[in-house]
């Protein structure tokens, strides 16, 4: 080992706390990079492989009923490579281990040939025998949630008739990686599952012999999805087609996409923050180290080391820190990645999902970390290279301070000299001060930029479940029922109040923009399921006209008073022009509302309803749920309170993990910045602080100089952190905004306060550690030596 390498090793050991503080900031950058890029790659690679192996379809459509012969015609649409027609329905289940009703998506399996698309991944058992009325394959998460195994049985109401089903297989499907029940806000594997049965059986049960109600298409590469969808819609028009969708609107795919988008955002925002802070820290620490080693540098050059050799020595020093940081970060990233993958497996059901990292990602993590260190060191090292040895061996020119803003200063009257010291020292080393302020601000921004989402979710829940949809449960009927169905539901035990609704699938058009949506009809002045305007005040639906959610209005580019085209996708498929009468608040999906009678007049079907919202007496819950399970006309019973509770439980589990991660990340930055700042400041001012002690300043008074500097930096960083954090939150809101859901930007003062408290707490701990060094200053030793 050469002498310079030995010096490097010893410098690292001597400066280990500072080096470690910097390495940890770098580690956080590398870890978030590994985690973000790794999880993104794992998730998207697994999805692609799964899609390809199990032939996930590209286009999906549901319809009322079409003859199977139509499949040939669909197959002739240019660009279509495979067609799979099937029967798909939603049905109520009566499960032995549950009081509340569950539902399932019932999907047919072809009896003759094997599945062409969305092929099942059979975990155990076999497919049902053609025409067997009892045999069913169920989705694995649903089976797990109920402890079902091969041979288990449960009850399902298929088209109003209760049957006992017998589990012969347990499977996964690329179509239901994320299986969300109707009206649900997150998957609940207990209350929603997938049941696959023989086509013959389902055709008989639903009176669809020789017919189908759902179609999936695989497209040729380079086929135009839009063109295929348009032609498919034309073909299905006559058969009650509800409008075809591409993958981007398929629920499971869309939610996975949203998650991927979030991971991508994380790996674009977080690692750069850490690497920038790391570069600042390297810069300020190395600049100080070089100042202290000035004479050694002169000596090295004087005895014949070249400029490059000396410059390289310092670059190696920071690169060593970077490599240590990257190593810690990679280890942490892999560990966190394993945890994230486990968390994913609760929501996303893949046959396999492993957190796997491409070797290139490791290289990227090490590379970016080293580059940030070298960039941070650049300016200081350039100074070393340029320093002539003769100059280096003489003491540096004394620091020149300025009496800035003298007049203002005098005007302020008596200002203590210690405050003057603090202000002058901070303003003299303004680059270091500014980068420290920015570093702390970024830590605050990470906190504001993550903690806001909890309030935002709370706000969304409050608006959606406490102000808009206040019902305890919603019963959806298989098909439209006469108004009398409302009174039947209202008569069930414990129902305190019931309100009907009508839902019609439509296409809304304005100009050349078109969207598939559902118009919901409600009676005027409903009390349970209400429509809220943009100020969250309940809106009374007008007798004519349509009300659009703000997102839908924005997509269609309409304002109140505009006429929009409404194409009914059910029944008579009329196209009518209706005025937009109000724009309302809506976070989930694309929503539009009409008066229920106006809607029924539009469909020309008489007074019918699609379902009933209700609130019930908690005391009567069990008998009521028993009754609801048996309603033959119902396809689904949504239990909003239970969904909400489940949502909150899952959120509470994840919140703790998320808060821990984000707080740790912020604390690492704050600690890295403050510890290094304080050590450097102490190294520069140790002599002055010792002088103050000699002059009779107490320990507290003397160390208050350093603490005041830190306080000022942390204080200055707060508003900046809030601002950057709010910007991050805004970017996230915009980034997550999709037609599926939208997150409101809610920034409660509490979030700013909490972020600042966490930042200040971490800063205080770092400052107190450095303060202990002040208490241990050897006064005599310091004063006897020349700096």
């Amino acid at each position, binding site marked *: 080992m050469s002498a310079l390498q030995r010096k490097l090793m010893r410098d690292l050991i001597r400066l280990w706390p500072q080096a470690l503080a910097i390495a940890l900031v770098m580690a956080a950058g590398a870890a978030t990079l590994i985690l973000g890029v790794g999880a993104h790659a794992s998730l998207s690679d697994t999805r692609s492989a799964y899609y390809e192996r199990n032939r996930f379809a590209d286009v999906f459509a549901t319809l009322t009923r079409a003859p199977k012969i139509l499949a040939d015609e669909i197959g002739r649409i240019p660009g279509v490579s495979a067609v799979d027609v099937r029967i798909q329905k939603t049905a109520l289940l009566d499960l032995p281990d549950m009081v509340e009703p569950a539902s399932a998506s019932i999907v047919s399996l072809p009896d003759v040939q094997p599945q062409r698309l969305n092929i099942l991944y059979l975990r155990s058992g076999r497919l049902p025998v053609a025409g067997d009325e009892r045999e069913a394959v169920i989705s694995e998460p649903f089976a797990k949630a109920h402890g079902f195994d091969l041979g288990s049985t449960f009850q399902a109401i298929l088209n109003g008739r209760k049957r006992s089903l017998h589990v012969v297989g347990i499977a996964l499907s690329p179509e239901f990686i994320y299986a969300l029940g109707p009206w649900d806000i997150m998957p609940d594997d207990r209350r929603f599952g997938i049941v696959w049965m023989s086509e013959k059986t389902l055709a008989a049960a639903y009176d669809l012999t020789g017919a189908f109600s759902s179609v999936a298409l695989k497209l040729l590469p380079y086929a135009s999805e839009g063109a295929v969808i348009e032609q498919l819609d034309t073909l299905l028009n006559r058969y009650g087609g509800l409008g075809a969708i591409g993958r981007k609107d398929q629920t499971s795919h869309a939610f996975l996409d949203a998650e991927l988008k979030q991971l991508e955002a994380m790996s674009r925002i977080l690692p750069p923050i850490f690497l920038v802070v790391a570069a600042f820290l390297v810069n300020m620490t190395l600049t100080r180290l070089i100042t202290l080693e000035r004479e050694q540098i002169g000596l090295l050059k004087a005895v014949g080391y070249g400029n490059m050799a000396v410059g390289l020595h310092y670059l190696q020093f920071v690169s060593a820190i970077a490599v240590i940081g990257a190593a810690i970060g990679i280890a942490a990233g892999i560990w966190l990645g394993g945890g994230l993958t486990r968390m994913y497996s609760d929501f996303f059901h893949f046959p396999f999902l492993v957190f796997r990292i491409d070797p290139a990602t490791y290289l990227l993590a090490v590379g970016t970390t080293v580059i940030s260190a070298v960039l941070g060191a650049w300016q200081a090292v350039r100074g070393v290279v340029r320093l002539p040895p003769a100059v280096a061996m003489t003491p540096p020119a004394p*620091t020149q301070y300025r*009496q800035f803003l003298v007049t203002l200063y005098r005007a302020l009257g008596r200002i203590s*000299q210690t405050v003057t010291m603090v202000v002058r*020292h901070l303003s003299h080393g303004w680059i270091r001060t500014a980068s420290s302020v920015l570093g702390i601000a970024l830590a605050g921004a990470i906190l504001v930029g993550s903690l806001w989402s909890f309030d935002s979710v709370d706000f969304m829940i409050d608006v959606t479940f406490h102000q808009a949809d206040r019902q305890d449960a919603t019963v959806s009927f298989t098909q439209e029922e006469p108004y009398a169905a409302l009174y039947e539901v209202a008569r069930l035990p414990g129902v305190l109040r019931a309100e009907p609704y009508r839902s019609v699938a439509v296409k809304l058009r304005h100009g050349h923009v078109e969207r598939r949506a559902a118009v919901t009809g409600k009676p005027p002045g409903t009390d349970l399921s209400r429509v809220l305007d943009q100020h969250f005040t309940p809106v009374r639906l007008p007798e004519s006209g349509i009300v659009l959610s703000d997102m839908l209005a924005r997509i269609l580019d309409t304002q109140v008073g505009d006429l929009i085209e409404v194409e009914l996708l059910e029944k008579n498929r009329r196209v009518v022009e209706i005025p937009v009468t109000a724009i309302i608040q809506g976070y989930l999906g694309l929503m539009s509302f009409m008066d229920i009678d106006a809607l029924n007049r539009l469909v020309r079907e008489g007074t019918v309803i699609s379902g009933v919202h209700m609130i019930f007496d908690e005391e009567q819950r069990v008998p009521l749920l028993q009754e609801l399970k048996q309603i033959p006309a119902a396809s689904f019973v949504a239990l909003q309170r239970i969904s909400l509770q489940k949502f909150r439980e899952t959120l509470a589990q994840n919140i703790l993990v998320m808060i821990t991660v984000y707080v740790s990340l912020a604390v690492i930055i704050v600690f890295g910045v403050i510890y290094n700042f304080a050590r450097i400041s102490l190294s520069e001012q140790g002599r*002055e602080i010792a002088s103050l002690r000699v002059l*009779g300043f107490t*320990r507290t008074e003397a160390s208050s100089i350093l603490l005041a500097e830190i306080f000022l930096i942390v204080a200055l960083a707060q508003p900046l952190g809030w601002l950057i954090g709010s910007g991050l939150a805004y970017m996230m809101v915009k980034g997550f905004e999709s037609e599926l859901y939208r997150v409101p930007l809610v920034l409660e003062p509490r979030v700013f306060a909490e972020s600042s408290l966490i930042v200040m707490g971490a800063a205080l701990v770092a400052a107190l550690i450095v303060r202990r060094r002040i208490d241990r200053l050897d006064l*005599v030793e310091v004063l006897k*030596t*020349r700096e």
Partner: protein
Amino acid sequence: MSAATLRTKGLAKVYRTGAVEVTALRGVDFEAREGEFIVMLGPSGSGKSTFLNIVGGLDQATSGEAWFQEHNLTTMDERGLTLYRRDHVGFVFQFYNLVPSLTARENVSLVTEIARNPMKPEEALSLVGLEQRMDHFPAQLSGGEQQRVAIARAIAKRPEVLLCDEPTGALDSRTGVKVLEALLLVNRELRATTLVITHNAAIREVADRVVSFGDGRILSVSVNAERKPASAISW
């Protein structure tokens, strides 16, 4: 005869670093009266700085006693010593130890802000002849001027004790004489008991008494029958 301001009895100090013990003082008995100007001579390691640090409240003795007026310094805790330094002692060091980010005036104010009965910073600076340089930063002053700011800072609290460790050590003869003149002037004006450590034997002639240290003890004490003014000496 005025009362003793500083008094030590059997003062000893042993430094322990690991297994090594270094005895810096081996029982020093000493007394200094109010207003006395005492020069302390001796080679490096003779114990004079250790002695100065203990009577200045910067260090603690291993055994023996040190008294300031009727206060026993050897029994004081850290806080008591800090208050002793704050209220009664002025220090001047070889390397000035000024705060570089404060001007001359502000450096002095540093002390006047916390002292009980200080003079104005301007008054202290005038005493050392720096009334024209008050708003200069240390980096804008010569070595001698910086040392005079340090003296002004040391005396602005009107200390009873003024302790100087090699105050002219870093200065040339001409500048050193000016600093010495300043020290003699404040000693006369404020009647502060002044102890000056030096390697420079020429300075002995301005003192009331000269104490010679060697091997942790006082070897000899001589009284100057006639004190020379600073301007009369050079080195």
